[in-house]
């Protein structure tokens, strides 16, 4: 086994010596920079798309928030107080006809 071990070591050493040095072609650096720039433009495109998407999402959110908040600020028409509005909505005659108020009160009001 030791013999094979030594032979294998020699074989690896011969293998290393047998491999020629690899020289880069003249096109190596230009091609590398072309690939770097190509990747950069893809990343830039993804970044821009993300920004556009985020801006659109923010705009849509603002529109929804304003749509939801508008009804909360609207007030019912009318310039009177709560009591006056209530009195308008339920005239004395109606309340008397339902027996809520006595008839005399209605008549006194009409006089």
């Amino acid at each position, binding site marked *: 086994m030791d013999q094979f071990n030594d032979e294998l070591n020699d*074989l690896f050493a011969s293998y290393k010596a047998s491999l020629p040095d690899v020289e880069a072609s003249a096109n190596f*650096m230009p091609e590398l920079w072309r690939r770097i720039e190509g990747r950069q433009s893809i990343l830039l495109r993804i970044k821009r798309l993300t920004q556009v998407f985020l801006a659109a999402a923010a705009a849509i959110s603002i529109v929804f928030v304003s749509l939801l908040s508008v009804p909360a600020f609207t007030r019912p028409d009318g310039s009177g107080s709560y009591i006056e509005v209530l009195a308008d909505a339920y005239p004395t005659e109606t309340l008397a006809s339902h027996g809520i108020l006595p008839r005399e009160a209605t008549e006194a009001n009409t006089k």
Partner: protein
Amino acid sequence: MLVDFEQIQKAKAGDDAAFNQVVTAYRKRILGTIARLIGRPEDVEDVAQEVFLRLYYSLDQLRTPEVFEPWLYRLTVNASYDYLRKQRRRNESRMSDLSEQQVMMADAAAGGKASGEDHRRKQVKELVESLLGAVSEQDRILLTLKEVEGLSLKELEKIYSVNENALKVRLFRARQRVLNAFEATRVTTNKPAGRKD
């Protein structure tokens, strides 16, 4: 280190000229390593460009310039491994011819008819590559880095980020498999009656 720490720091800060210098300094070594790892000369440059491309985009993650070399080796190993994984199907089909190839190598060696230095080199190359085919791609890469590239266990430990003992075990097993394949080849070579046909 083939470049100053300062160059690496500059490249890390986005200095393209410094990055060019780093690539120029390490290009030859990386090309050689890749050639030995993937065994396909026509694709070496392509894989090397992938390594430097990854380097360019991950240089900002490098904590200290001191770990630059193991880190570059790790990028090289990963890119080579990715390449080999892509080529796996093709490799598998080549593996089916392996035993025949081994026998041919052994026959040629037994005949002792080396016809020149180039022929001998070619034989050694083919024999070692076929022997390394006895182990997985990962172990083949590990074994090549240790036995052919001559990296120490400490260096491999940094590249693989595993402890030395785990590496030793893995290397021992891989080497045993290669050794068994080598032994089988030698036995075939030394058969006294010789092979017919």
